């Protein structure tokens, strides 16, 4: 089944066109990466999928639901992690997860089970009752990733999920995303600057620059097509038109 369908998506802020005829499709259970430099249009694309921004033109559907016509239904099946997003500083990690569980689960037992799983996934068992403001950046990010998957979304939208994290924490987060997506069949779309991360995580990627998709495919296919040793080299060749 098609999880995400984006066709000829355009987005303008005043006279400034941020996205120009962007089209891609993601199959259910796939991990899809949007790769590009700053200002390429990655965050805008993810914000449109997350129902935070409206497309200026084009069609965007998530599991067959149009984001303009059915934003409320879309919000029930997605989970969005903004770049640098924080949690409520004065709540404990457990209280934060509990708050979100109450929003998504009607059944108390199901909610509790989801919270327990999220705590285990975050690896914060010993600190979960401490206030979020006492967490390190890595701990906050682990809590955020855990809450994204806690609600069992059909589509997880992750904007730079490992930004600002050290090598060890980045690796933990990547592993968690990969494991959770593959075990539960959750579709993931993420953005990243980190080519290594993309190669490790994504089944397919789209290279985006100045609001246009320049190339799309599996990381190994793109490398092969551009005769590049790694994705970084392939990206440079794509951007330079070679």
């Amino acid at each position, binding site marked *: 089944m098609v999880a995400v369908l984006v066709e000829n998506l355009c987005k303008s*802020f005043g006279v400034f066109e941020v996205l120009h005829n962007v089209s891609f499709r993601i199959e259910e259970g796939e991990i899809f990466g949007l790769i590009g430099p700053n200002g390429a249009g990655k965050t805008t694309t993810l*914000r449109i999928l997350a*129902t*935070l921004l409206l497309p200026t033109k084009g069609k965007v559907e998530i599991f067959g639901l149009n984001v303009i016509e059915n934003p409320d239904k879309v919000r029930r099946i997605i989970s969005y992690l903004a770049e640098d*997003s924080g949690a409520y500083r*004065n*709540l404990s990690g457990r209280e934060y997860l509990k708050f979100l569980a109450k*929003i998504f689960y009607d059944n108390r037992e199901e909610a509790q089970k989801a919270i327990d799983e999220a705590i285990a996934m975050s690896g914060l068992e010993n600190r979960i009752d401490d206030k979020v403001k006492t967490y390190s950046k890595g701990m906050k990010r682990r809590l955020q990733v855990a809450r994204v998957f806690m609600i069992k979304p059909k589509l997880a939208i992750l904007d730079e999920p490992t930004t600002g994290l050290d090598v060890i924490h980045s690796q933990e987060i990547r592993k968690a995303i990969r494991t959770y997506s593959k075990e539960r069949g959750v579709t993931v779309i993420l953005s990243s600057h980190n080519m290594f991360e993309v190669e490790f995580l994504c089944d397919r990627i789209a290279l985006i620059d100045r609001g246009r998709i320049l190339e799309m495919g599996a990381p190994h296919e793109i490398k092969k097509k551009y005769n590049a040793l790694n994705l970084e080299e392939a990206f440079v060749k794509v951007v330079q038109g070679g």
Partner: protein
Amino acid sequence: MVRKLTALIEKEIKDLLRDPRIYIGLIIPLLIFPLMNSIAAATIAPALEKAQHLNIALLDEDKTQASFSVRQFLENYGFSIFEIKEDEKQKVLNSTEFNALIEIPSGFGRGIESFNRTKLKVYFLVSKLDIAESAKLSSVEKALSDLNEYFSTNIIMQLGDVDPNFVKSPIQLQEGTVVKGNVIDAPPSTLISQIFGQSFFIPLIIFLLSIVVAQIAATSTAVENEEKTLETLLTLPVDRASILMAKLLASTIIAVIGTVFYMIGFQYYMMEFMGGMFAGSSISLGTSNPFVYLMLGASLLIAILFTTSLGVVIGALSNDVRIANSFLGVLIIPVMIPAFVLMFGGSIESLPLALKAVLLALPTSYPMMLSKSIMLGDIPIEAIYGLPYSIVVTLAVIYLTSRLLEPERLFRLQYKVMSWRMRKAKKHA
């Protein structure tokens, strides 16, 4: 729906109450007023104590039984009396050891005995201009007033078998005041003091509540922007009205707690320090008309929702708390205008047309206007028409605020506000 709203309110209250910016603000009035009181007491008590031990120079040029009585009376008052001679007078006036010089002229006793008004000259010797000095001088004044009373009573008693109290005040007034048909057993002066207290306090409470509630809502929403939690919140499957309602209710609950704490602290301060000037009067001026209280409660709720919604707008458009606080200064003005006009006794009718129009346009004016009705029992016609008007205005503001929480619109406005601030900063640079 209810479960989601409850979860949102619970989150808001917990996050707010644990925020030092909020809970310190709540606790401060409980500490600061007793502290102010202690400081005032620590300053005044020694001054009053010192006022009991005064050095009085006495120049007795009369040397009669009456002048002796003056000396004795002042000694009984606890003052130290130092008798001086005429040539020492200038030295005493230049000295800092004495607090007063009392000159009893020759003929003082004869004047008293022959029922002629007689003079007693007093020089208050001021060495410092502070509270302690003022207390000392008041103490001397009080003693001399009592001395006059003492002589008056003695003279009346010498006249025959009459009660001095009768001679001094033969008519005993039993005062009552009628307000709008209600008879109150108190003189108008007491009534006016009570009216002043109530007409000052109720608008003060409303004013504080409106400001605090707007500040809390603005801070809470601005923190959501600062921490980027608003972005996550807006992608959750909860309608925007619930998000807004949770913020309005949580801010109101915290503001009510804060205002109660403030009023407890303030009341304590006024009762302890001001000697219960505004509080504790035995007369009750509240009307028995329940409609007035109902109107006041409704108008207060509307005013709070109005200012809280404005607070949410300010917070939502601010990238951080600092920016929100600077915008709040502008919001405070519409709350301040009616508060100050009505707190200090102004009436709507006496205002210039433009100010009257501003006042009537603001939902925050009506609870202040109605607070006066509690005392007098009548409801101004402006308030009767103003209440439905306020409801419409406030609902419109709430609706527009919930529309603002549509992410696309919010991000565009945030971007505009940010661009405007950047242009302004560049212009100043």
